[in-house]
């Protein structure tokens, strides 16, 4: 059995696969690096798979918190792992867009699913999950409901500040001058999509474009991204655990090479 752990800035994921690459256990916890999240995710994945730790032949950790997690056999970056996971799930994928809690990446894959090139957002939170979290808080809705709120938008609103801090005050003043919450929610999705599309244009988006990461669960962002990029975007099943699946696949591959 092989374990992949993905420790992000705002969530921890774990996946267990067998030698036939079948997923036996998976778990997501909404607390990330520096918390009990990773342990909890690993524990829950073990329970779902119905196995104990000794059964694991090899483990790989990925994500922002990978450097400080010392229980895995190897660490690999989230860029490599997301690419691997996405290519495994959708072999025709040539571009992977991964929007996580605090960063966004666009990864180009070659025909064998290997990373060919990648870009990552700069340090700020623009175009990431954090931006949406801040917007959801101002709109007084849960992050999970932001997408359905935006479905009822009637008018286009532009959030012109890319900086999350400035965008926050921009949105507050829009709301106080009567803008509808639904419209603002849609504006927030568009703002993220614009940033990520800009990032993607630096390396080009080749079809099929696949989206991974927690933000892929937000249909509003996916639709806005399709509009901005003019490309069809496929959301992979269980987008949050793709990094962990990639890590588990590397664990399997490394163990096979060693034996």
């Amino acid at each position, binding site marked *: 059995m092989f374990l992949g752990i993905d420790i992000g800035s705002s969530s921890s994921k774990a996946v267990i696969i067998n030698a036939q690459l079948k997923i036996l256990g998976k778990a997501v916890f909404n607390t990330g690096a520096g918390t009990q999240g990773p342990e909890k995710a690993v524990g829950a994945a073990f329970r779902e798979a119905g196995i104990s730790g000794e059964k694991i032949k090899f483990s790989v950790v990925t994500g*922002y918190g990978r450097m400080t997690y010392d229980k895995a056999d190897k660490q690999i970056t989230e860029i*490599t792992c997301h690419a691997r996971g996405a290519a495994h799930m959708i072999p025709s994928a040539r571009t992977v867009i991964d929007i996580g809690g605090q*960063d966004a990446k666009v990864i180009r894959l070659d025909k064998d699913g*290997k990373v060919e*090139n990648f*870009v*990552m957002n700069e340090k700020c939170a623009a175009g990431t999950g954090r931006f949406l979290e801040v917007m959801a808080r101002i709109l007084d809705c849960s992050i999970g409901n932001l997408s359905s709120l935006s479905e009822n938008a009637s008018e286009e609103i532009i959030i012109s500040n890319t900086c999350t801090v400035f965008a926050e005050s921009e949105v507050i003043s829009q709301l106080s001058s009567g803008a509808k919450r639904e419209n603002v929610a849609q504006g927030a999705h568009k703002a993220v999509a614009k940033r990520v599309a800009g990032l993607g244009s630096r390396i080009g988006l080749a079809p099929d474009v696949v989206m991974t990461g927690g933000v892929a669960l937000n249909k509003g962002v996916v639709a806005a991204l399709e509009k901005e990029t003019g490309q069809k975007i496929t959301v992979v099943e269980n987008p949050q655990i793709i990094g962990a699946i990639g890590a588990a696949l590397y664990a399997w591959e490394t163990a096979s090479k060693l034996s």
Partner: protein
Amino acid sequence: MNRIEKIISALEETANHPAKAVKASMKETGKKAVGCFPYYTPDEIIYAAGLLPVGLWGGQTDIKLADKYLQSFCCSIMRINVEQGMKGMYDFLSAVIIPAYCDTLKCICDNWHVAVPQTYLIPMVYPQHRKIAAGVAYLIDEYKRVQKELETIAGKKITEKDLEDSIALYEDYRETMRHFTAIVSRYSKTLNAKTRHLIIKAAYFMDKRLYAIKIKELMEELKRLPEEKLDGIKVVVTGILAETDALLDAFVQNKIVFVADDLAHESRQFRTSVRSEGTALERLAYRIADHDGCSLLYDEEKKHGQLLIDLVRENHADGVVVCMMKFCNPEEFDYPIYKKELEVAGIPMLYLEIEQKMDSAEQIRTRIQSFAEMIK
């Protein structure tokens, strides 16, 4: 510690503690020191005057005072240089030479008299059309003006012989450095990315004659060693400079070896020789005219991309790492042109935006590691 370790650790110590090293060099040689802002200051003239040229390429100082003169969208090297000047850290220098290559440097030339009145400024303007006769003649005139200023500081006349001797010494230094950078791939563990950088950097704070002796000694000692097997990734690095420690550590951790560089702080300083004919100042001016592939020197033919491609091919490198100094206009304007050429040539490239003081290197570390994983 063996002989190699001793030489390397002394050079690393020099590079890591510039002020201390410069003061020691001044004491050792009995010379006054002149600060040289980037890029291509006429160090040969300074040396010929019996003065010690010292490189001023920023540092790790926190920025507080410099905000008065340079906005936060100016490059970190220059914000730190102005900060260090304002804090009095350059007070032991007899003067600074600031060449006005970009808007930021021009702005510093304007502000220096007020911001750092205690440190004498010799401004310089390099010709845009450096290859035509008028450009060369203009540059020679600039050199003559600077020469006069330096003569006043040194209290002595600089003869043609002084200049020729100084040029010979600098040519020897440049040739030595070209040899040094060429052997890195044979000793990729001893001369890892960080050590290589610090060794090259030490030159800015030492008398070039003594520095060249040290590098030759180091190369002699290295030759006695068996070659080290290179089991990592070979890259050509380009940009203004490749710092901080965290950045260089990430390269070392991921076994990325700098088999060649095109950094303004490193090889761009020594890859072009002076011509053998002409007066001393003509020879210096033609070195600027002949130097290509640098974003700071206007190049109609845009040869930078081909230069990088050649460096990759000659050194069998796996890719190019771009260390883009944040807010550096000349380098940013140059980038899209060579990026396209590298893409057409099928050369993998890693783009890193860097600042001299980075609070968190986490993202950069992830990018470097991902690049290494991609190449493997």
